């Protein structure tokens, strides 16, 4: 799908109300500039994939036990990743995204370099800037964000993803442990980073629900988790009689792979900062879907 389909006259003429929603203004999140952060941000996806590959056999043998045992490790991995590599909520400059933001054009649409420096002079900040004041305060902010992200991931994201899994056809009366554990793993993969960098900012979460965030490592990882899990469901019905076709395994494998690749791919200049559009002019998302 090299070029978008030429929109027919009907479609362009009659879709004023569709208007690709309010252009979100919060910029993409960049990995922290320190060497450690930069390095680890590439190591982390590899670690995830490695974990996935290494524990695959044992998961196939006894999914519930192994997934449960892996859960703390995954949480620790994710927390160390976000704390090492990502700016905690409230430290990036956030242009107010409340309601009808008129100055949407100001949102940087192109890679703006790995910069966490504040941008004084911007009209409004959602919360107090705490980064950079002192090492202790920065660590405190990181810890608070990490705590918040863990709490929300386990309390909100996990049940939500579990419900979604059931809605997509996961068994309701049986395999509840598997569903819940699968949801927990997916939540850790996707939601930890999102909550850590965005906190509970309503306008950003509205973009998240609308899949309208600009591509960055965090968003790419989250979206990749979802898409990977979606594609992971495909081999389940096949009659190959392999033990790994059992319910949560392929979905989780897909989620891990999707998360790792999503976070890497969305940092490439090709995708960074781009948004998924539903309106006729773009086809990116569908490309992912059809490939």
């Amino acid at each position, binding site marked *: 799908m090299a070029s978008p389909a030429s929109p*027919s006259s009907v479609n362009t003429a009659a879709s004023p109300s569709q208007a690709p929603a309010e252009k979100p203004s919060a910029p993409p999140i960049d990995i922290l500039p320190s060497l450690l952060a930069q390095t680890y941000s590439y190591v982390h996806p590899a670690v995830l994939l490695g974990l996935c590959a290494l524990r695959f056999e044992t998961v196939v043998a006894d999914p519930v036990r192994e997934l449960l045992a892996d859960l703390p490790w995954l949480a620790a991995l994710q927390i160390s990743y976000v704390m090492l590599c990502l700016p905690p909520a409230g430290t990036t400059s956030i242009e107010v995204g409340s309601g009808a933001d008129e100055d949407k054009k100001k949102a940087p649409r192109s890679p703006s370099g790995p910069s966490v420096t504040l941008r004084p002079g911007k009209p409004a900040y959602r919360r107090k800037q705490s980064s950079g004041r002192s090492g202790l305060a920065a660590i405190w902010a990181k810890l608070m964000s990490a705590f918040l992200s863990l709490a929300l991931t386990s309390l909100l994201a996990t049940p939500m993803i579990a419900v979604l899994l059931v809605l997509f*056809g996961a068994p309701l009366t049986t395999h509840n442990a598997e569903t819940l554990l699968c949801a927990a793993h997916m939540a850790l993969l996707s939601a930890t980073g999102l909550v850590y960098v965005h906190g509970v900012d309503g306008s950003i979460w509205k973009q998240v629900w609308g899949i309208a965030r600009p591509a960055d490592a965090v968003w790419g990882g989250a979206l990749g988790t979802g898409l990977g899990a979606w594609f992971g469901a495909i081999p389940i019905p096949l009659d190959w009689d392999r033990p790994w076709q059992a319910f949560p395994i392929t979905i989780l494998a897909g989620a891990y792979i999707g998360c790792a690749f999503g976070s890497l791919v969305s940092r490439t200049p090709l995708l960074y900062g781009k948004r998924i559009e539903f309106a006729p002019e773009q086809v990116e998302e569908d490309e992912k879907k059809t490939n």
Partner: protein
Amino acid sequence: MVPTPPTGGLSSNSPSTGSRGSIQSSPLAPSTKAKQSAIQEAKSRQLEQEFKTKHLGILGVLTWVLLLHVAGIYFFTKGFLLTRMVLDNKSSCDLLPFEDASGRAVASSMGSKKGCWHDKSFDKAVVIIIDALRYDFTVPFVPRDESEAAHLFHDNIPVLYETAVNNPANAILLPFIADPPTTTLQRLKGLTTGTLPTFIDAGSNFAGTAIDEDNLVAQLHSAGKTLVHLGDDTWQSLFPGYFDANLSHPYDSFNVWDLHTVDNGVNEHLFPLLRPENKTKWDVIFGHYLGVDHAGHRYGPNHAAMAAKLQEMDGVIREIIASLDDDTLLVVMGDHGMDIKGDHGGESDDEVEAALWMYSKRGVFGRTSKETLLPPKHARERFVPQIDLVPTLSLLLGLPIPFNNLGSPIEEAFAGSSGNDWSNLLAVNRLSAAQIKRYQHAYATARGAGDDEESFALWTAADEEWKTASKGFTSKATAVRSSYELYRKYQRHTLEICRGLWARFDVSSMIEGVVLLLCGISLLVLYARGMKIDRTELTPQLLSFVGAGTGLGAVAGAGLVLFGITDMTAIDSSALLAAFGSMVGGLFALLKKPANLTLPLPNGMWGWLAVFFTVSQSVGFASNSYTIWEDEILLFFLTTFGVCAGISSMRQKSTADRVLGVYHSILFVILGRVASFSRLCREEQMPFCRSTYYASSTSSISAPWQLAIPFLVMVFLPSVVRSFYIGSKSYEGAATLWIGVAFRLGLLITSLFWVLEGADDGEWLPLRKETLKSIRVFLAQLVLAIAFGAGTGAFFYSKPCISVSVSKPPPEDPNAPPVPFIVGQQQQPRTTVTILGFGNVYGTRFFFLVVNFALAIIMMQKPMGQGAIALLIWQILSLLEILDTNALTLTNSPIGPIVLGLLGSFYYFKTGHQAVLSSIQWETVFIPMSTVKYPWAPLLVILNTFGAQILAAIAVPLTVLWKRPLQTHDRVSQSSNTKLVNPATRLLSDVVQAASTHMLYLATINLATTMWAGHLRRHLMLYRIFSPRFMMGAAVLGVVDVILMLVAVAGVRWSTISVGEIFGW
């Protein structure tokens, strides 16, 4: 009372926010001359006429598409459904199958008095067929593991096993494997002719035709025997005129809800004939009991009714044994088995494993080894094919083996009571092998092909051994035995060859069909997605080019036949070329003005999603797994759509759109998941699936708690529909009566029907079964009358769902020229007309059609299916709101019609169906009828089977009509000063685009299943999986094409006219 101003139409500017609520306007009537109003009226009439003409035109286009689909399916089916040449040769007494002199010598020496080709063992026979007598019914229950307990159908007919164990010389009991399709008609053909069924005959169970091949009944008849037939009337249609008219008593076989009439009838006439004084009146009796089969269809095997029926059969057989004499052979057999729900027709193990039991008071049966003394514990040990009965019975009764027979004599029947009569075994097997060889030779000659080499080698070897054996030297015994075994091997080998041979497909015809379908789809893509202009403008040219193409093609086709260029029949050749000609014509008409065209590629996420759903599902049908799990995959897709809809709704600017959109997206997903709990598993889904559609997985009646579902539907469904009407203030006018009263009343009667049905099954009421039945039939007919009779009439004449209120003007200025104004701009008091329900005037008016069909379809479903259909309607309404809030109605997005296609397929599975023949709920014919009447019976079965797809198809126009703003001629011409257009034809163009997009989905699925079935025609799973899915795809396409044309798009005519009458054109 609706005011229709003399200007011919109510002029009112819809306020920008008014599309959802009410509008207010004051009638504009510049008190002008009557002349002007007359002009207006004429104009209006002209516009209405234009709409009607164009509407007829698009119906014509849809008819063309339907015919193309039919032609494609016809040509593919012609080549795909297997055919076998039927040879007219008959075996005769005088001519032994051997070509050598020795054969003739034997023939003459054996003579006629002791039997034709072989010494006869019996003069007379009683052949009892217990329809659907599965093998495991007849043997003692053997648990496969510790936890397995006996089912109700086990151990109820012990007589067969007991006799075979206690008196092995008197009785044998063997598994009796049917060749699919396991329908009674096909089985009777196999059991009398000894040939293999080919697919071309499958499904004609409901209209039997006479057998003209050589067969057992004909041989008996020509041997001068008196034949009696009792029971299932299929025999009479297969063998007309062969049975003694005075003694035979056929019974109607299709009333599967009646367990006893046929059986009692057979008993009534059978036992008198067995009395000594009547023994001379007959030679062979065929008795066909249907009770077991009907108990299976109605209740499933694991039901007390089945146990009782089997016990009754046990008693019947004991009684026959008691009155049997020494010269009479008794045969009891099942013609097929039944699956776990009691249905049959396919080729699953349970369906093909029947039982065969032979009995004689004279000990003639033997076992050739000690291990085979007991009847097999399971049906897959030492089984015999059903066609083996034909040579066995022929030779036992001293008849020639029917010419086309492929079966072999059953060993136990010829081995002698001590089990070592090898020379007899050799003799009979030499006879049957020779007959098979003769038949093969004749068949090969008729087809113009040579004999198979391997079978020739086998035959030669067997013949050599036979010659050694017949010379009678030292090694005689071993030679006899090895010769017997070689003949046997030859027969089985030939049988295998024939199984392969008759899986011979006419590939060129299949390709013609596939190409037709493919070209049809390409044209449909162009028509549905690649035109920029109003489709109704194309119609005249399109139709005339198509007509010309058809005519030329037909003539050319006939010409080809006339000049002998093709060996097709004239009709086939004309039809094929006419179809291609019409497509060339159509293509020409569509491509004539390239300016009108646009690349038919999807644009935007929705377009790609629609393509993705269609294409990925089509690709998936290449895999048996995805075909088996289609229901789960559809749920997955529908949830995916719901999630995408939620995401898209989150992006909407207007808060109302966002909130409503997200709400309906969540609702849509949850409803789909709730519906997914209604399941009827196919055999291949086991053990990962649990059926919930019936009381249990081995039953075909509803559980008592399921009887609550119709009441829940009655209480909630009308309210749900009402809430959607209220959302646009449209619960006005006819809607209150229609949805609030008539619909609910119909649903109430439906609930009562199922209570009575439950009462009948559970014997709760002290009423006679006949009384209950006639009350039920009356209630069901009443509901259908409300739905189709009253409903259709009302649909034609009803007014739109609006309410108009006029607030009185101040008396001083009655003649003031009212001007249209927008709410809030009121300057001075005037007559104010408030129209409620204005925002969804097209949609709510058309939705009545959905309500009518929903009522009829709900009536035709089992309780669980009624719940599913109710959820379908809710999901459709939710989908329409999603489309509206995401601005997908007016943009002609393909996603709406495609998701409706997904919904139709999804709910097909949720109403207790699967893509297998045995899941057709034939018994629903008896919901509104007490006997089978044509043409209603097939229509009712279609309504039951494809109900979900029909409803989805009828809802297709709503994807462009729901909350469509009212557009009339003057509004459009006011706003855009372009040339005069008729907005009604614009609407028509959108409707036909939606309809053809929906067709496109089904046509693609049909093409995919067709191509895969053709491509995988040698696949192990062809008959089990791919072929039924192909048939379902073709049937759905045909039904939906017709419904779209005759109901959905046709209905737009009346709904639009009724809106036009109020608001002008």
